[in-house]
């Protein structure tokens, strides 16, 4: 009894300022008050400042007619439409350049990383110079070089460079011959989409069977075959002409027809993806090098081919390390797209700034811009975090 009583006595004799439980509660309360008070003050301060300057904080103006043009809107837009629509056009442009940029940068970055790790001295040093060059110049400088120096010195429309295809390249952009869906093309698209879904299901089913039985089920060629077959079927159903080649033709000032990339979009995409690829290359290299060397040696020892070593042993383990820093790179790319302002690509920030000016509403529009980037970033990291959770090592 005596031995159990002693600690009880001691405990009650601890002064409150040394009692861990009480201290924890105090810390919680203090930090809540500090943070809450700070937020409160900030909001009050902000509201007063806005009132004092007569700045309205409503979003009604978004329904008013915009009155300003947007260059090459990706979706239907003309100046009679609303400020809200204009902002949305900017958002679509941001998404376009970010998504294509992320894909391009990932592919390029991975290739550069593999080249960097190559045992070929020349290849690995070319990759090294690429990384060091693009990682160490500011993106804005790169943008100006690409847009004003490189694209600005392309020939004028009438003296366009012609590449087989034909692809026309001039100061006004890149014009590609592009298959355009005809009116009878709908069955083709439907068949192809069905084929895609079926192929995907078959792929997973066959792969699972192989994992269980250990026998090769040729899941890749089979599913690819399904896609091709459905495409051919669709071709027949649509009467043989689901597509029509649309060739760029010089009409008046510019080419029309075909697929066109404006210098603004192309410049943005090129600069963003080459710049980010340099960072991604380092992330990928770090991931690959972090896989224990023993894994590689063991894989070789059991007789796997180089491709199998890479795809079955190295990459799955490297991905676990690569994904988290990759998320940051994707977020950076998305946010860096706001530099497009400098070269006249009208994404959400540059349209937002015009709205601010033409509608005279700085605070709500800046709020909207911040919200847009916040949502984009959170969405990106959510998707990648889900993916990351799937590929993490399952420990039992």
């Amino acid at each position, binding site marked *: 009894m005596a031995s159990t009583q002693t600690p009880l006595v001691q405990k009650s004799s601890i002064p409150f300022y040394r009692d861990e439980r009480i201290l924890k509660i105090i810390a919680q309360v203090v930090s809540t008050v500090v*943070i809450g008070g700070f937020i409160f003050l*900030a*909001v009050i301060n*902000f509201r007063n400042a806005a009132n004092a300057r007569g700045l309205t904080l409503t979003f009604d103006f978004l329904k008013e007619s915009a009155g*300003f*043009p947007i260059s090459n809107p990706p979706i239907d837009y003309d100046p009679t439409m609303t400020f809200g629509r204009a902002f949305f056009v900017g958002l679509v442009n941001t998404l376009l350049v970010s998504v294509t940029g992320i894909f391009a940068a990932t592919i390029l970055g991975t290739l550069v990383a593999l080249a960097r790790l190559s045992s070929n001295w020349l290849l690995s040093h070319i990759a090294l110079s690429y990384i060091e060059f693009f990682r160490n110049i500011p993106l804005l400088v790169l943008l100006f070089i690409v847009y004003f120096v490189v694209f600005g*010195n392309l020939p004028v429309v009438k003296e366009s460079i012609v590449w087989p295809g034909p692809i026309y390249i001039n100061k006004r952009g890149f014009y590609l011959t592009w298959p355009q869906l005809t009116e009878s093309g709908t069955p083709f698209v439907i068949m192809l989409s069905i084929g895609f879904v079926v192929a995907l299901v078959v792929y997973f089913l066959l792969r699972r069977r192989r994992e269980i039985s250990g026998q090769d089920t040729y899941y890749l060629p089979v599913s690819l075959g399904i896609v091709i077959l459905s495409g051919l079927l669709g071709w027949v159903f649509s009467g043989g002409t689901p597509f029509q080649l649309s060739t760029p033709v010089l009409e008046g000032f510019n080419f029309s027809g075909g697929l066109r990339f404006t210098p603004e979009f192309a410049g943005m995409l090129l600069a963003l993806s080459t710049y980010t690829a340099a960072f991604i290359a380092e992330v990928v290299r770090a991931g690959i090098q972090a896989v224990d060397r023993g894994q590689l040696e063991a894989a070789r020892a059991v007789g796997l081919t180089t491709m199998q070593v890479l795809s079955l042993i190295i990459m799955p383990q490297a991905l676990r390390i690569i994904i988290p820093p990759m998320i940051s790179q994707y977020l950076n790319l998305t946010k860096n797209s706001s530099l497009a302002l400098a070269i*006249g690509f009208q994404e959400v920030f540059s349209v937002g700034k015009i709205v601010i*000016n033409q509608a005279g509403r700085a605070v709500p529009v800046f709020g909207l811009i911040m919200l847009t980037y916040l949502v984009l970033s959170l969405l990106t990291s959510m998707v990648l975090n889900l993916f990351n959770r799937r590929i993490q090592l399952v420990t039992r």
Partner: protein
Amino acid sequence: MRKSIALLTLLVAFSLLLAACGAAEETAAPAEATEAMEMTEEPGETEGPAPAAQGGGILDKVKSSGKLICGGRTDLAGFGMLDADGNNEGFDVDLCRAVAAAVLGDPTAIELVPLTAADRGPVLQTAEVDMLSRNVTWTASREAQWGNFTTTMFFDGQGFMITKDSGITSTDEFDGATVCVTSGTTTEQNLSDFFRQNGMSYEAVIFEDTSAVYAAYEEGRCDVTTSDKSQLASVRSGFADPDAHIILDITISKEPLTPVVPHGDDTWYDTVNIVMFALINAEELGVTQDNVEAMKTSDNIKVLRLLGQEGDWGYSDLGLDADALARAIAAVGNYGEIYDRYMGPNGKSFTLPRGPNNLWTNGGLIYAPPVK
């Protein structure tokens, strides 16, 4: 739990930002006369702004800080540029210098804040500048949203510039053209109106930075560029080969370029306005930079009033001294002298006939109420 912490961190960061913004605006833009009354109701606000603002008003703030913060530009020859020594000069800059000379007695006591076209509205709304003199077109919506427009100092209109090689002779041939234009301007709205009105299609290439607009145009990204005609003339003068470009004879809009002051300070508005009146009246009365001292003993009563030698032109009500306007004229000259310095027959930047910017007595539109 982890998510809520992240959320909280986010909120804190956001509010920090807001607080910082609020605080910055607070010091940069002291309470103005009309708002001072509202503010006394809220005790938290009284301690805020710098002591300069205690008396309210931009005039007092300018006097106590000893400099005039002027929104301008450094990239447009004739209006706002840098000279060989890196000093700001130009038509718009001289208007600021005139105000600085009148209020502070020193035309060099300006702090010129270079702004893009799209930044002009927000800096006025938050009163980050005391005065905006940067090719601002006076429009009804800007008057309502931005600030108080003083007196139109340059009557302009929007035109089109094309290359000689393009073979275009009139705007009728513009269908399908690519047009380079500056964002956040009346120009971009007029452009869209013009093409809509005439049922023509066009491709706009839009930059925020004026120099980027003309760099892209000169490189051939666009067939056409459009802006106020004075700006086109100015830019063309800086091209590698000015003769290869033509400014078409058509004018598609009214662009009254006018200095602006922030909303809510009547005294300051009056002060800037009267300085502008004085520059115009000085030309009308033949008072120049060189003869302003001599004219103080002129036998023309109007001149004596303008130069503060006889009667009060209102200076005592504004808190200025009698000599203020004479100092402004001595610093930058009269309206015609300012114009000719940059855009006259022997102008530093380029030559543009005065046209509507002649005095009303010479068939132009430049007219100011009498200073008396």
